[in-house]
């Protein structure tokens, strides 16, 4: 076995999930659904991975292409078959362009956070009669991380995306501009900033502990039995901790070297998500390469990996501000699509924004929801404002289809004004009684879970 591969692999799995505070999650019952009973998409999580865009980080703004790509990324219409029917989109697995460590689909996952992309359910044409799930990777910093796919089978991100859409999820052949937009969107997703790393990917000594520094030294140290190898040989600190190559690390074939940046939030680890922690990953490589690491060495390596894999504010609390910002960004695509009379893009935006607005409206429980009391007028006003926006978006689509571009532009102006301050203000007033409030959220999903709990079928 190639020593270099070993090193790469060492780093490969090094991703320790920080204690993420996901709130109560709710599995689909599956009784009359596309996805099987026991499916967990974690869509009710109150904490969402924070999305950092390269174009915004330095004070700029996302381009039309990036926003269009974000729309497509969140649109079930880009996919086909069961995924589309189940209202899944790219963002279902890659929440905010990151990952979804709780996603679990019976028959397609062997553990939370992995998923079989060649299953019978999503595209019979790609079915390989194996249950061979792969972990859902984060897309942060993807522009630095080619080749693409867990085994690096695609040199081009564009080719990789097309394969995901058409072959893995049975979607129609995507329009070139949609593929371009998806590429632009993914390439704009940055790593979270990690102030613990200095130039060249070295630990910033001012912040580093002794254990982390010892771990860094071990990371660069040649392997005793394969002196040409070290962890750093594959996870190159000067290059996003990757070498852009595939290596055999004893997990069943050649696997692409994964980045260690922000890896604290990318668990589970290894290509199939077999390990939950850096400890397990280090132990794997210790055994594979006869490293003879002491317990202390292993702890030091884990401390180092944890420092490298860190990132600023990895999660943000879901809420009105976050949702409306995303919706406004989506809507901004119409500023160019309407005058261009690009009916395909207009329809895609209207469908995606409409679904987002409807979903947001459901976050403000109606009068039938016994899990919340109070704020009824505020909730009602929030729901009505969001529903009105849905209809205004639909009106745009109808007007553009009929060639009434001025009318569409007028509607867009109204929507833009409403989504700037008035609607967010209404939603903010109602937020204390919404599912964004942890108490209301828990009461709502608690009641739902109690009602739908399969265990209830035998005893209650």
């Amino acid at each position, binding site marked *: 076995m190639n020593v270099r591969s070993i090193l790469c692999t060492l780093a490969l799995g090094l991703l320790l999930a920080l204690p993420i505070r996901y709130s109560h999650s709710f599995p689909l019952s599956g009784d009359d*659904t596309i996805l099987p009973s026991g499916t967990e998409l974690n869509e009710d999580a109150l904490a969402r991975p924070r999305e950092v865009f390269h174009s915004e980080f330095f004070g700029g703004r996302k381009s039309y292409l990036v926003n269009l790509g974000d729309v497509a990324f969140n649109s079930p219409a880009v996919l086909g078959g069961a995924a589309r029917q189940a209202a899944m989109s790219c963002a279902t697995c890659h929440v905010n362009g990151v990952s979804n460590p709780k996603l679990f689909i019976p028959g397609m996952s062997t553990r939370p956070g992995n998923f079989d992309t060649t299953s019978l359910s999503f595209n019979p044409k790609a079915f390989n009669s194996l249950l061979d799930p792969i972990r859902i990777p984060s897309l942060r910093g993807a522009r630095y991380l080619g080749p693409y796919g867990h085994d690096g089978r695609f040199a081009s991100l564009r080719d990789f995306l097309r394969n995901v859409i058409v072959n893995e999820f049975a979607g129609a052949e995507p329009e070139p501009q949609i593929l371009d937009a998806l590429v632009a969107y993914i390439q704009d997703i940055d790593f979270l900033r990690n102030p613990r790393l200095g130039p060249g990917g070295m630990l910033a000594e001012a912040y580093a502990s002794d254990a982390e520094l010892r771990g860094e030294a071990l990371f660069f140290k040649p392997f005793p039995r394969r002196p040409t190898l070290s962890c750093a040989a594959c996870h190159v600190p000067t290059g996003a901790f990757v070498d852009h190559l595939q290596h055999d690390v004893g997990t069943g074939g050649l696997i692409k070297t994964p980045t260690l940046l922000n890896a604290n939030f990318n668990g589970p680890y290894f290509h199939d998500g077999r390990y939950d922690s850096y400890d397990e990953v280090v132990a794997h490589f210790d055994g594979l390469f006869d490293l003879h690491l002491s317990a202390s060495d292993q702890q030091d390596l884990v401390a180092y990996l944890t420092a490298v894999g860190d990132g600023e504010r990895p999660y943000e609390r879901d809420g009105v501000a976050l949702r409306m910002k995303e919706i406004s960004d989506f809507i901004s695509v119409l500023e160019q699509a309407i005058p261009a009379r690009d009916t395909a893009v207009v329809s895609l935006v209207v469908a995606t924004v409409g679904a987002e607005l409807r979903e947001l409206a459901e976050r403000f429980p109606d*009068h*039938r929801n016994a899990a919340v009391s109070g704020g009824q007028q505020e909730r009602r006003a929030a729901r009505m404002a969001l529903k009105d926006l849905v209809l205004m978006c639909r009106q745009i689509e109808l007007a553009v289809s009929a060639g009434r571009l001025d009318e569409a532009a007028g509607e867009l102006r109204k929507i833009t004004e409403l989504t700037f301050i008035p609607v967010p203000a209404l939603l903010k007033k109602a937020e204390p009684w919404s599912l964004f409030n942890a108490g209301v959220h828990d009461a709502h999903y608690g009641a739902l879970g109690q*009602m739908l709990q399969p265990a209830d079928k035998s005893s209650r």
Partner: protein
Amino acid sequence: MLDEGGCGVMEDPLSAHSGKRVLKVMAMSNSLGRGTFNVTPLLRWTFDCVIRHTQSARRRFILHPALLCLVAVTAAWVPDANAGPSVLDGATEAYRRHLIEDLGRALTGAKLLRDRLEAHDLDGAKRAWIESRIGWERSEVFTSGFVPDLDREIDAWPNARHGFHGIEATLFGANRTDAREETDALIAHLADLYAQIHDIPLPPQRLLNGIARLAFEIGGSKADGGESRLSGTSLNDMQSNADGIALAYQIVFSEAFEADAPDLAEAARAAILRLQAAVRVVALRNIESEKLRADSEALVAILRRAAPAIGLDQPALEEAAAQ
């Protein structure tokens, strides 16, 4: 000369200072001529006289006293200048009879459910629950907006204990029949509603709100199995909702829209048919959700455009809690 909205005479040759009065008269005549009112030939003749008289260049500024009297009498006879709602008020009474029938069906089903529970007949209880739901869901144009408190008791979501869905959890989720207490409460609430429905006011505006709200709701994602997922009858709910919309529209609004906004009436009729067809599928999973959503929103958009033509406001998609 009359514009399509029935309230303008913009190209009328009348002079500016007399045009305002004539405009008003002609607007009334226009409504009459479209059959919005059940007008006698005398009334029609009267307004025709006025219009002919005022359109004469020579007599533009002078109305004959006899005609003035006729106008006064006619104006006093006409019950309401807001034609649409008056006619619609009559139609709502026809709709009330259907509501009584549907809510009666829900109540009868609930009573049968109680009988089946007492007999420990699980399958029979499930069938009765489904039967009761049909009448209830067909009435949803009315229930959620007019009687929200009872709606909350009868159709609470989510709630593991009471209402239709609490009982559903016991029958279909746990496969048990010990839901007597919840069923008694359901019957009491449905009986209360059934008593109210005979004389509760049914303003057309709020019924139109109810249609629009329900049409919008049908377009919502049911990818999670919908509200009645344990019984697997979310699709039935949607079909009953669509039928309830079709019923309310046909009985209360179709004639008025056809008279005052025929193009939009045709569009609304077609949109409702599309909505009904979209949910007439074998299983919930066969629904084309994006198309259904587009159909539902298109219907609401049409109703919003058409409402002013019959003197109503654009329908609101949420009803005030304390109306």
